């Protein structure tokens, strides 16, 4: 198991490395740069900007500078002037013996070109927690609706519960965030005035966006849970459990459910990805200050460090979640052995 996890993590770094090269090459291949605006900058100003962010150097050098600043720790001495290009996530002060204010600094995602004073790390610090809260809330909504719906549908197979549940599920797949968001805003926010239409901060603000984001995923979970539970209920060990005289409740909750969750767990990785990409629409519609908008504005504005950071962050999360899913998988089903 340990060997498997290590191997998967190495594989993860390889994927991220390849991805970073492809994205870096692709974004530099796109014509136009961060300082090409509709009203062009004076050439001298532009040259200064290019110089400041090292954009006049060969792309290969830029790539290694960029990756080096993230991966390799460095030691600095003396007082450091605050600079958006020099903002590290990890700063560990060393004892005085190592030199004047010697500090190990590590993980710098660089400056963002669109704001003079902000670094990419600043944007992470400000916006990532918001997106994370929204994502967790949406995941909670998806599981809270999807699991019961699927279980009830499977246990009452071919009854009105089943048909209603699966009808709701197909309905859910057919209403992406882009539809559900405005409809919820109108019905709950404008018409019934139950919850705020836009905004972020209170718990109340979180309900509508989390629901809009989680509902489509709950439909997916419901269908999977139903199919999987139906399959498990036909297994021999369920018949054995019933033959022992266990109550139906214990049979379902104690024996069937855990085994039926295995396929559900496998989709949690991709599902998480869908939540993160869905956040852009939700954040725009509901006016939430999260990471979502940077996924798009960074690309359209050629904000190179921001593009790299958002894509690497997202990909790392995605691959990491898949590893977690594999580990949970083995825990749910002890028959599964890696290596």
């Amino acid at each position, binding site marked *: 198991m340990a060997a498997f996890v290590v191997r998967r993590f190495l594989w993860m770094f390889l994927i991220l490395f390849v*991805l970073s090269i492809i994205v870096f090459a692709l974004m530099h291949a*796109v014509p136009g740069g961060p300082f090409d605006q509709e009203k062009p900058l004076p050439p001298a100003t532009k040259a200064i900007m290019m110089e400041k962010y090292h954009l006049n150097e060969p792309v290969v050098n830029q790539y290694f500078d960029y990756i080096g600043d993230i991966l390799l720790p460095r030691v600095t001495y003396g007082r450091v002037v605050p600079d958006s290009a020099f903002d590290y996530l990890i700063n560990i002060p060393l004892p005085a013996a190592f030199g004047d204010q010697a500090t190990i600094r590590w993980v710098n995602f660089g400056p963002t070109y669109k704001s003079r004073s902000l670094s990419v790390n600043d944007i992470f610090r400000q916006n990532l927690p918001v997106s994370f809260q929204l994502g967790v809330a949406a995941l909670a909504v998806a599981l809270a609706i999807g699991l019961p719906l699927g279980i009830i549908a499977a246990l009452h197979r071919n009854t009105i519960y089943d048909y209603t549940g699966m009808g709701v599920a197909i309905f859910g797949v057919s209403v*992406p965030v*882009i*539809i559900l968001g405005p409809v919820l805003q109108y019905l709950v926010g*404008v*018409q019934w005035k139950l919850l705020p239409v836009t905004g972020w901060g209170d718990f109340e603000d979180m309900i509508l966006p989390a629901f809009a984001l989680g509902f489509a995923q709950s439909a997916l979970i419901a269908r999977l849970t139903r*199919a999987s539970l139906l399959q498990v209920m036909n297994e021999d060990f369920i018949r054995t459990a019933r033959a022992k005289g266990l109550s139906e409740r214990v049979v379902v909750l104690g024996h069937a459910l855990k085994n039926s969750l295995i396929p559900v767990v496998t989709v949690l990785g991709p599902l998480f990805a869908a939540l993160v990409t869905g956040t852009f629409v939700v954040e725009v519609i509901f006016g939430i200050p999260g990471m979502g908008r940077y996924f798009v504005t960074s690309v359209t504005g050629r904000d190179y460090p921001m593009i790299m950071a958002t894509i690497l962050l997202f990909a790392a999360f995605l691959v990491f979640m898949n590893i977690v899913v594999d580990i949970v998988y083995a825990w749910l089903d002890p028959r599964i052995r890696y290596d």
Partner: protein
Amino acid sequence: MAVAESNQTLGTGVASLQKKAQGQSLWLDAWKRLRRNKLALIGAIIILLNIFVAIFAAQLAPKPYDLQVLTDNNSAPAWVTKLFPNMVPKSEGGYVNINNSYILGADNVGRDLLSRIIYGSRVSLAVAFVGPFFSLLIGITFGLISGYAGGKVDNFMMRFVDIVYAFPTLLLVILMMAFFRSGFAAATPGTFAYAVGQLDSSMGGMLFIFIGIGITSWMNLARLVRGQVLSVREKEYIEAARSLGVSTREIMFRHVLPNILGPVIVSETLTIPTYISYEAFLSFIGLGVNPPLPSWGQMISDGSRAISSYPNQAIFPAFALFLVMFAFNFLGDGLRDALDPRMRGVD
């Protein structure tokens, strides 16, 4: 005499059996099962209606989709203000201009919503039917080669799929769209890139949407096709074809491909709603079709900015998008049950 007679009846019996068995091809069988599925049929009817609307958009739309009457901006007909009670007409002390010549109302620059929704169906349907083309082309080719070649080639190709699979699809699409849009626009006249750029702008920006979606969504299909090929290629009829000296290419296209078509069709139909929502998403973030060509995603994006005052501008296109997504989901579900009854529920 009696024996001959019974032989005769036996003969006709066998003949009628053969006759019956002849008609039961896989597709006819599937069609019979599909016909019994009411929801799938409703889905198919909605899609057919939609195709009709898309083809005859010019005849059906009451106004040109790009006609701006700025004095009529945000106006709505009387029935819409009754449907959305918070839209109080000016005559009753509210803010909404009543203009009954717009059946669903007008948008913020005074364009007819209904006409734009009708023309918008063209984009969604094009994505639904042409969008899969590129993903089918890449996915099937890749899967066929990988599955049929086997061994090292297969292993290498599947590791490649694994790597591409880990890429965040939608972010890659965004990046590609930006790349296509600005790259091909800047190409010098006479080059291939320029011709592609021209073709795209003559299609209202849809070509790049097709390619962008195709490049990023073939992996699932490739895996599916490979798996199917692996199971089919060990069958006796493939061995028979090979021993008869049929060329590899012919085996692939005449014998393997038709036998794996069922699962491929089901998988693609079930993915169509995803393509449609991709297009809506791209238009929503401003990387979709070129304005003033209307797309539902972009109409929802514009409309949602004024959701409190003019809900009709977002809700109506959202409803149109919902209908089409719903129709394809039900049809896809029905097709799956019809083409592969084993996948239905779990029996």
